[in-house]
């Protein structure tokens, strides 16, 4: 994988994979039947050429047609764009806790999720919650869509500039 974005964040031998190709990433996140997209408040502060990152994530969520978890205080924004039947407000730490419980039945009561996709979180904070999932679960595959190389995510991006990230997200959306 690419070097972790935060240079000192070398957790150990177990590190995830950087996905450079948006088509490959599209296939990775399309495949699982039961998945959840966890969107954080940084998606409101980050902009790519004047468009909020939250808006890219909303498009991805709609294409994936999956449940969205709004963390931090982003629910206020997401509820204007996503059907509230598919939107749940919950903290990042609480959803991580539930995802790392094998017996959890999910928010629909039908069972644990196969994949958790994350985006819009402080890089050092999500590194820790991803570490929880990496070290204590083998049932949830994790994907990070923020521009950073995340060693604790199973799949993440390879440290992109804003321009590269914008292109990646646009191509990802096209291929979903």
């Amino acid at each position, binding site marked *: 994988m690419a070097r972790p974005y935060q*240079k000192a964040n070398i957790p150990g031998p*177990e590190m995830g994979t950087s996905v450079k190709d948006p088509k490959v990433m599209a296939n990775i996140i399309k495949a699982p039947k039961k998945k959840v997209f966890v969107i954080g408040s940084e998606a409101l502060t980050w902009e790519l050429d004047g468009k909020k990152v939250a808006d890219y994530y909303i498009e991805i969520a709609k294409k994936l047609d999956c449940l969205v978890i709004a963390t931090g205080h982003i629910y206020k924004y997401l509820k204007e764009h996503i059907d509230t039947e598919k939107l749940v407000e*919950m903290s990042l730490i609480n959803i991580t806790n539930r995802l790392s419980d094998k017996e959890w039945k999910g928010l629909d009561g039908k069972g644990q999720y196969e994949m958790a996709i994350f985006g819009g979180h402080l890089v*050092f904070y999500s590194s*820790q919650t991803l570490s929880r999932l990496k070290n204590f679960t083998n049932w949830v595959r994790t994907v990070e869509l923020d521009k950073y190389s995340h060693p604790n995510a199973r799949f993440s991006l390879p440290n992109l500039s804003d321009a590269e990230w914008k292109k990646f997200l646009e191509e990802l959306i096209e291929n979903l």
Partner: protein
Amino acid sequence: MSKKGAKLKIDEYKGPLGKIKGFEFTTGKVSYGDETEWEPMGPHPKPHIPTLRNWFFTLMDRYKPFYMPICDMCCLCTFGKCNLSKGRTGACGINMETQQARIVEIACCIGASCHSAHGDHLLHWLKEKYGNVPINFGNNIAVEMPMTRLIVGMKPETLEDLEEAMGWVQFNITHLLAAGHTGQEASFKDYEAKSFLAGLCDSVGMEIADAVQIAAYGFPVGEPDVPIVELGTGTMDFDNKATILMIGHNVAPGIELVDYIREKGVDEKIDVGAICCTAHDLTRYYDGAKIVGSLSRQMSFIRSGLADVVMVDEQCVNLRSYEQAKLVDAPFIATNEKNMNGLPDRSDDPEDQIIDDLVSGKVDGVLILDPVKAGRVAVETAIRVRPIRKGKKAVPDEEGCIEMALRCNGCGNCQRNCPNDLPLVEGVRLAKEGDFSLLGEIYDECLDCGRCEADCMKEVSPLTLIMYAAREQIKNEKFNVRVGRGPIQDTEIRNVGAPIVLGEIPGIVAIIGCANYAKEIQELYLMAEEFCKRNYIVVVSGCAAMDIGLVKNEDGETLYDRFPGDFDRGGLVNVGSCVSNPHITGAACKVANIFARRPLRGNFEEIADYVLNRVGAVGVAWGAMSQKAASIASSANSLGVPAVIGPHAAEYRRMYLGRADVQEEWKVWNARDGTPDHEVGPSPEHLLTTSETIEEAICLVAKLALRPADNSKGRMIKISHWIDLERKYKGVDFPEDLEKYIRVEQDIPINMKDEIMDYLKEKGWEEKELVDPTLLERLCHA
């Protein structure tokens, strides 16, 4: 009361009693008076590792340790490195959970020993200087050291009595630290129980440190109307006076410095300011001192050349402060054996000789372990060195800064090494063109750590460029903070005890801790203002107490100008420095003791059960950074006080999380009739949790203030605030799990009754029985 050691020796006696020759009697301790008079001894005085283990395990049955490793390996012994990820075990047999718990336990021991060693140093220094001073906090405070009474089971009356409590702390820390050795503890839960006990040691160690300085230095003893003092990097009179900057947490040399200024009458020639808790404690003694700021202002203040002399003591001192002082020709004085900086020990040298050496530049730093001498040398050196160094700074002018920026090749190492991922690459790029606006904007988000410059191969310092960009703010920043008042008065507890326990005062919000924020330094202002306006009691200490003061409203008022210092509805109470934190947890214990008449003495388990179920206190350590903050959190958590910590604090790697969705984990005994398994709902939901944003944290604090024993009126008030905040900051109609917190119809806020009833019907809600909750069967009446 007791006296340490007694000896009776009779060489020769001849009289009515007969003849005695060569009689000698010695004892380690003599007790007189009757200690049991003040309160009968509870079941757990002076707990050791196993004593309160059942209580800690009970807490963890509900609030399970939740680990997020920051490192997947163990490298503590020569078996390693061992990779522990994905179910592996190390060569010693340790697994990932236990290793995480072990590291946290060691951190808590470091934190507890830090406060306690600080207390031990002060205790002995003050005994030497002032003798066996009584611990008497006046008529309004009869319960003067509640945590020591609760945990150690003693009521100290003089400094000498505190030796016994300190002995208990030191005994336990030694045993707890021993448990961190390779091949000791195999259970993560037992490590966690030890972390809780380290928290108790910390409570007592901190309480001793603050009690002795209150007693001996005459700090305020709980008066709400203590003075307002100046806060900010621009508060010292740089143009007209010599300036001394102190950094750290141990105020002993600072007090001597102030005494010397007074004795010599040189306060017109010299200004004194401090960073971190020394600043708080200095202003508790001398309201002419300035609080320069929290720990994230150290490098920028020194490098900007604003200090003529830098004097450090202990804890949270940037280890580059000596190097920074050298850059600006500011003599550096280390004063504490825990932080000697490799400097020559000049403690026994004549003062004049040390001053001459520092002023002439023969030496750039000295170690002086005698606080009196350190204070005198600092004052005289500052006065004499000021005209020589002429405010020399290590921040170049605009031309120099542009020149530096032009060396940048845009590799991005600085930004990727920045803890907050600040936009340094773009900021430096703009600086090449003479545009410093972006770097100026991020000054308040910068932690002042210097990791950016440490990772630059081109000798560019983004930190220096930020300092240049923010030079006017650094030189002119002036706000206010209320001096630390120390303990909460018993009379205040009597006034607020019932409304707190019944829930009518919606909560006590304790905003404490360090300045390792993920966003701007002023973020906590929003939280403090929100809860003050809503009539919660807001209690603050340490760096956080400074940072909430860094905002003024339209009328030019800080929060301290707007809200009173009373421990009452809408009060904003600054208790003081880090070691003043037991006044906050102690207030929760006093509610149990003074209002509810629960005995304190050696009765930790019962009081903690009371606080968990009845006292809506919530801690917030938004920028928690240190091991001390870890042990403080353990002390609060062990007592049933939940805490919310900021995003960086996820790097502590362990939380205590409840599961609101698992109904059976929220069962209690009904103390009224002794029946078990009453489901009371998830309150408080967590014991220790991170939060992603300040907005989310504000909502969470309101939620965590709910307690199982709230009466319906109180629950209604608390829920009303919680819903209101969730709507304001998150835009929800209702909190996702509202139905779990409404026990009976009377809990529902009247102005929202119809809509909430509709919501509850949709959720299939049913009323719950109201009980007298306890987690301890032995406290049931039948």
